[in-house]
């Protein structure tokens, strides 16, 4: 019984578990990695985790993509909300992806500048140079 309940919890909510794991991975990389590029990768994983979360809340069982095809459900209006997945989170995430890409661009540009200035991408070496 208990095993069943646990597997159900794990399997049926697998998207949320993955989002939590990804988020923790991202935060871990941002906090502990000394290499600046690894920090940026962690940052991107964190943003991807949020995107996955938003996309997975829009999913519904037995629903299709939200393109209205009149007459599909034979009623006059032809549109039942349960037949379609929620398109709004997808649209929001398109914007969030753009924001993430822009952040990535700014961060990478900063890293290039930092490398030119210090000749290294290791955080501790840069801090040692700063304290000189």
């Amino acid at each position, binding site marked *: 019984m208990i095993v069943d309940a646990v597997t159900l919890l794990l399997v049926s909510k697998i998207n949320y578990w993955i989002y939590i794991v990804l988020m923790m991975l991202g*935060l871990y990389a941002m906090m502990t990695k000394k290499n600046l590029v690894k*920090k940026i990768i962690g*940052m991107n994983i*964190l943003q991807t985790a*949020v995107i996955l*979360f938003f996309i997975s809340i829009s999913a519904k069982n037995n629903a299709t993509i939200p393109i209205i095809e009149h007459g599909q459900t034979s009623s006059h209006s032809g549109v039942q909300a349960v037949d379609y997945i929620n398109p709004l989170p997808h649209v929001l995430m398109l914007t969030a992806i753009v924001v993430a890409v822009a952040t990535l661009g700014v961060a990478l540009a*900063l890293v290039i500048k930092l490398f030119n200035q210090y000749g290294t991408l290791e955080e501790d070496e840069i801090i040692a140079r*700063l304290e000189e």
Partner: protein
Amino acid sequence: MTHQFSALIVILPLVVSFFVFLSNWWLKKTGYLLALTALFCCLLLSIGILDLVIASGVIHYRLGGWLPPWGIEYYVDTLNAIMLVLVSFLSFLTAVFARKSVEIEIPEKGALFWALYLLLMTGLLGIIVTGDLFNLFVLLEVASLSGYVLIAVGEKRSLFASFRYVVIGTMGASFYLLGVGYLYITTGSLNMVDLSLLLPKLYTSKVVLAGFIFILIGLGIKTALFPLHGWLPDAYTYAPTAVSAAVAPLMTKVMAYAILRIMFTVFKAEFPVTVIEVTDVMVWTGTLAMLVGGVMALSQSDFKRMLAYVIVAEIGYIIGGIGVANATALKGAVFHIINDAVMMACLFMVAGLIVYKTKGHRIDNFIGFFRVMPVTAVVFTVGALAVIGVPPTCGFFSKWYLLLGGIEDHQWFFVAALLICTLINVALFFRIFDKGIYLHAHGQNLDAGVAAIDTPGNDAPISMWLPALVLALVILLIGVFNQVIVETVIRHAVPAGI
């Protein structure tokens, strides 16, 4: 025409910033003028909006004609309107002030700098005017991304400071977005007014609680609320003068405004105050922020760094005031958002004037500046007295409301921290008065001081000191007319239901 104002105030700087960007390769000189004109128009628009709001109440603007809660709505009440005036006024003055310092500190950037500056203001004005949680996230990132870049063009160390800010700031933005997602799951809405109607039934839900906490932490990082303030001192110290004069007063204050919005518009006052009692935590973080900010400021030998820690302390005043959550303290908190932005802009401009003369912003650079730069000295005196909280400067009155609010609610630690922090501020600024006035007491360090570099009475150019002097005047005027301002504007900006 007038009902389009709230959309125009965001669209105008956004569109103009592209032209400013292009002008870098075509008509280099026009970039600055374009930016200045746009900011001036924003100032006029914001005054128009404030007038409209006072005359005829809340403005609902539907972008593209879509009805809320489906479309994005711009929502302007008294609180937004006064924040709009504050941001556009300070950004305009800083732009006037910054022309010379940008020419000297970052000559090769030119028009590109002004394009980014306009984008930053687009983001800040948008955050204030928007009535949609997701739209707030996008504009938050517009403001933050341009802020990161603007900070990175500063001194040598600014690159690393800016990189840290990117990493921590993105964490904050992601937390905010996650919180918005949680609220969206439970209610299916992103519109602030709509949410405030849907949420009360769900106040006991754990998902709503998690969403609220995520949003608060995310915005707390962006506000530099203690203990999430780690990115702030480096970023604001090494940024170019023009940037710290614009970003330092505005960014954190606008985020404090966003916290107010979330706590008292999206959620009704009942939720943070009585349901989850998060306000108690806020009083304590505010109290700690004041003490830590004050003590850290005391131990700095760099003027801009000292101001950065003063900002951390001032954020403590505001968040603590929100946490006390009675009408008086909230009046104080809203009033302090305004006053603090003006005071900090004024003092960062003083830092800019000193940098102009001495190329440095350590406190030693201030030696003898009363004699050399009389106007700067006047401005600095007014700014410093305002931060300390001496009447009739504006700083006194907002602190007074905060104190009264704290006493009303028996938050004795908050009250004590406020008073201690005031004493620390006295010590902070009298140290600089001492260096500025008494030349001969500092025999060995004289070389660094402005007195060793220049002759008496030879102040910075007028385009730099005039905006600073205007700000000093504004500080005094807000102080003198505090009652009118509180009665006609701030009283209506305080959220209902306290």
